[in-house]
């Protein structure tokens, strides 16, 4: 019985550690980007600079370790990909709030005449993994998320 208890204690301690750490490796976004750009969903987007990040997402790239931002430049397309590597986890809320605001403002723009765009925005993939925040609006955001998860 003691042995079983020890195993359970070790297991739960490990699970608690993994759950709280998020278990993401510290990988440069450059190497993640290499995997992502091969994806068809990303190929319809173009890489944006820090100014565009600030313009569309209202985030300053210099506040974070690294930022990767791709966006479809066509006015009627809502595809975009944002990956932020945080300096520390306390920044998570800032980024999540910015993403929520971005989605809300995009939905507001397309509501009424762009049902496909609104559906894509509502189906946006957002999650945190370790020190990364991932946000993607595309036809298949899950596929992009999968590439990202595999890359890190």
């Amino acid at each position, binding site marked *: 019985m003691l*042995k*079983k208890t020890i*195993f*359970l204690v*070790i*297991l739960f301690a*490990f*699970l608690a550690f*993994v*759950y709280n*750490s*998020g*278990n*993401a*490796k510290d990988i440069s976004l450059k190497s993640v980007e*290499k*995997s992502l*750009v*091969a*994806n*068809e*969903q990303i*190929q*319809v987007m173009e890489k944006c600079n820090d100014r565009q990040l600030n313009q569309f997402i209202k985030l300053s790239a210099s506040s974070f370790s690294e930022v990767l931002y791709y966006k479809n430049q066509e006015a009627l397309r809502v595809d975009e990909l944002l990956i932020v590597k945080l300096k520390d986890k306390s920044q998570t809320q800032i980024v999540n709030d910015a993403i929520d605001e971005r989605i809300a403002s995009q939905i507001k723009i397309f509501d009424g005449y762009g049902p*496909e765009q609104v559906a894509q925005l509502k189906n946006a993939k957002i*999650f*945190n*993994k370790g020190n990364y925040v991932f946000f993607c609006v595309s*036809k*298949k955001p*899950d*596929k992009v998320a*999968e*590439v990202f*998860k*595999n*890359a890190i």
Partner: protein
Amino acid sequence: MLFSSIYFIYYFLPILLALYFIAPDKYRNTVMLIFSLIFYSWGEPVYVFLMIFSAIFNYSMAIDIHRDSSTGRGGRGTFIFTVVVNLFILGFFKYYGFLMDTVNGILGTDIKYTALALPIGISFYTFQALSYIVDVYRQKVGVQKNLLDFTLYLALFPQLIAGPVVQYKDIEDQLHNRTITLSEFGIGAERFILGLGKKVLLANNFGAVYSYVSSLSSDDQSVAGLWIGAFAFTLQIYFDFSGYSDMAIGLGKMFGFTFVENFNYPYISKSITEFWRRWHISLSSWFRDYLYLPLGGNRVRVSRHIINLLIVWALTGMWHGASWNFIIWGMYYGILLILEKYLWGDRINTLSPRIQSFYTMFFVVIGWVIFSSDSLNEVIGSLQGMFFLSGKSLINSSALYLIRTNLVLFAIGILASTPEVIKQYKTLISRNKVIALIMLMLVLVLSTAYLVYSSYNPFLYFRF
């Protein structure tokens, strides 16, 4: 680490081979285990501890189960405890997010949770551990008293990430008693290169076709285009997974291990029942031995047999992923197998081989549409499109472009999914070994070239 990566082929493997063959026999398992752990921790620096925990836990519990069984105390309690803990670990990592999403969806709540990365290979090594525990409990295998050997059984790198699901009874002797001849080493290396070619030259290219079709906007899709995408995924998943299995089996052979075969040309099957005897054989065998037969198999009333099949296939679907489309995919096959068994199986047998093949492939392709989709809506949308139910044109310029640019690829893929190519290759070897060797080197060089210039291309089955 991927088998199909430059780092594995040109650094990891040569160094391991050198050290393995230099090392005295008694240290070879140690070398293999160290390298297996390095291989795993390459992609899973944290989760390697989970695997080591799983090894120590199952090793220790099996000893207790064996001791209790031998002393007449049965060991049932420890057995149940061990099975529950294994399933809990698998469930926590694989199904926790799915469960929370389902709860949020049903109750309309917004309970926040952290989605954890799935430890690579957890479904495979957990099933291997379970097969060992069940067999020890049933006293079908002896208990492994060497922790290093047992950890090696779970962590053996060729089959660690995506199988085949090796059962302990199949490998027990090989853990401490295996011989490697130059000839077997050569056969293993040949199998590895052919598997690499399947993955890099065929699967990845079919994957590119499938990605192209998937990324087309609704306006650019056509019925023909959707069918081309479905065929592309059908061939991609076969060459991807059977290529991986070939590499795993080949690598095993190079180190003296003989793993069970995982594929036997499934796309030449004449029925769905036959398809599942040829596809992912090691997983089907696992479910047969450790779930279907204990439930009573087919030696029960018809109604009970139908329930057994549905349970087994729902769980087979769930094993593939925490998503409703996988469960539906499993049930889809469960229902088809029930229909073949009780309704139209005999009639299928009377049809001509061509119609049998068409019937099988039709349902298999539809099955992959369900499997490859991200959501139920996508499944429905794709199927409606494929069957003229969403007003799409029969063919358009995108589909014509796909046909024009990929006709040769599809022809090669269809041919390579039959035994004919290997048959011709073996005939060639028997006649002229030099040409066969040149062909093999060509596959290796071409695959390397593709790897150098292509991006990260993980195996589809890594996510299971």
